[in-house]
């Protein structure tokens, strides 16, 4: 997937987290988490607030110690090593830039700690300032920078140390949308340019999907699903993941038929055909998940799918959300692209709705 995965040392995970558990008093922040993060990968930890993302990142960085379990960085057990003995660097949620130092001094800090020579430091700082496009800001004080510039200083300060693993704790959370999208591009560009392993913590599904090679979706201190963005998006393994990523219809019913990975769900007397996630028995209660944009709206004259009546049409900028009531009284939402002359359906229209069986996932409830 990435040039560096074929370089020397391939085969050993950049970070290996093994059965890590962490408690704070009553709270179990991490509950037996295991993970293998590949070299050069852009990996995201995605989950709602309080699910333990930061705690996991802080354990990898050495700021917290796991109650049990192990963390290996480049194959070496880092045990209770303090942060200053690890080849990781962190970009903190609130940046934590040194207010008494200039931009250049902030960036040079890590190199000075490693006793790199002055000329080497100047060269590296100059290079990294160019990479984050802050060439002319080296002499500025931190409080003379805009939010996006501070962000890039924080990124530069970590990256200049050429860490094996870069840890990013919701680094873009404080920025407005415009700036965040811009920083997404920059992060991607920098990741490609540097080739080290990035671990990003975020609660923003769009961020995780657009940036990552792989995503671990977390909930309540556990990893719920791990896979590529496309995997997780189109094949969520449970209702939590489906709900957390994108927008989906949830149709509750019972399993009418199930084979190895195909199945049918009966709800309101109607059959929904799709693929199954996990082993399902005929007759057991189950839920079908169908993404809004995977539900197609066809003219009433069509023969495919189910007949339905349009109940609502809502404009969502680049798309329309059409709510229909299908056979059996089931309400479904479809997201369709808006065309220049507006949407073709209107309130009260009789239509048919259809989906490809591989887009509909039947889950154990």
């Amino acid at each position, binding site marked *: 997937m990435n040039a560096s995965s074929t370089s020397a040392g391939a085969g050993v995970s950049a970070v290996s987290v093994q059965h890590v558990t962490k408690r704070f008093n009553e709270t179990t922040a991490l509950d037996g988490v295991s993970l293998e993060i590949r070299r050069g990968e852009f990996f995201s930890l995605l989950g709602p607030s309080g699910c333990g993302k930061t705690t996991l990142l802080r354990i990898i960085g050495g*700021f917290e110690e796991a109650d049990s379990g192990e963390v290996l960085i480049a194959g070496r057990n880092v045990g209770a090593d303090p*942060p200053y003995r690890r080849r990781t660097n962190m970009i903190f949620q609130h940046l934590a830039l040194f207010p008494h130092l200039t931009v250049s001094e902030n960036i040079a800090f890590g190199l000075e700690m490693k006793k790199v020579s002055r000329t080497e430091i100047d060269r590296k700082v100059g290079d990294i300032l160019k990479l984050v496009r802050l060439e002319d800001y080296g002499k500025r004080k931190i409080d003379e920078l805009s939010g996006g510039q501070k962000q890039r200083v924080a990124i530069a300060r*970590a990256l200049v140390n050429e860490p094996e693993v870069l840890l990013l704790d919701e680094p873009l959370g404080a920025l407005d949308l415009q700036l965040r999208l811009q920083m997404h591009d920059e992060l991607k560009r920098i990741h490609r340019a540097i080739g080290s392993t990035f671990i990003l913590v975020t609660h923003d599904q769009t961020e995780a999907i657009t940036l990552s090679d792989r995503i671990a979706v977390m909930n309540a201190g556990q990893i719920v699903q791990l896979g590529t963005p496309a995997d997780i998006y189109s094949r969520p393994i449970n209702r939590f993941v489906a709900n957390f990523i994108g927008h989906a219809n949830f149709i509750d019913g019972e399993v009418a038929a199930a084979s190895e990975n195909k199945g049918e769900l009966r709800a309101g007397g109607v059959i929904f055909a799709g693929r199954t996630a996990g082993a399902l028995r005929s007759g057991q209660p189950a839920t079908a998940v169908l993404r809004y944009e995977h539900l197609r709206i066809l003219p009433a004259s069509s023969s495919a799918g189910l007949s339905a009546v349009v109940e609502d049409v809502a404009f969502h900028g680049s798309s329309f959300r059409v709510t229909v009531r299908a056979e059996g009284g089931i309400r479904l939402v479809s997201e369709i692209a808006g065309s220049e002359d507006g949407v073709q359906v209107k309130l009260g229209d009789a239509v048919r709705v259809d989906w490809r069986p591989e887009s509909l996932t039947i889950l154990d409830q």
Partner: protein
Amino acid sequence: MLLEYYSTYRNTRKLPFVAGQSAPQRRASRGGWLLAPAMAWLFLFTIVPVAMMLVLSFWTSTAYGIKAEFTLDNYRTIFGEPVYLSTFARTLRIAAVTTALTLVVAYPVALIVSRARGGWKAIALLFIFLPFWTSYVVRSFLWLPMLGRNGLINFLLIKLGIVTRPVDWLIYNEGAVYVGLVYAYMLFMFLPIYQSLDKQDRKLEEAASDLGATPARTFWRVILPLSLPGVFSGCTMVFMFACGAYVTPQLLGGASSLMASNVIGSQFQISNNWALGSALSITLMVIVLFCFMLGSSRLGLLQVLSGSRR
């Protein structure tokens, strides 16, 4: 100059004493009348006594008291008699050493307390404040039964068999004055330093550690520089107070460690020479003021060297 330095240093905003002085300056440009009470206060408690002293210092002293007759004799006496100049020199030396010692004692305490957890922090602060609820004079007297010939320390030394007869170099010398002054002014050094340490973002320490700094290097490169405004503020106050120390050198010092205030006091109380006393006070004030100007220009230099703004 000093105040200007403080007000430009972003971390001083919440410091006591210092910030309190720069705030009215800034506000002055808006509504001058808002300053009226402060100006009245300043006039009543600062300008009037100093002006009175200044006038008195030019009066003539006679055997029966002072006469409103202009003379420069008082200042001639001060600059003519080596005893006065050497007293001033000693005062400045004692004040400087006291400031340094107080800093060395207070800084680690402030650092430890500021890094303590909630409950321990409150307890530690309570114990630091506790002695200061009694009078300064009582706190100075306290050292007599501690350092004296039959005092607690001699008692312990004898009990532990370290000495056979009580030692008498514990008190009535400059060393004892330092003990008393450091103890007396501890809080004024501790508080501003503690404040600047306490409000530091602890994430900065994590960031330093993340970037490869050991705890010691984190201290020198991050914690200490960010606490310098507190250090300057504490040093300023302690130096100022120590220059005017009276009770402590009187009680604990010997004849050779008397300070300017003792000499000045004796002019008022014993010699009944208010004119010379006033002239001495004015001279001390000018010297202290000069020290501050020197110090603050040095601080300005320090600021330039450390790459801070302006």
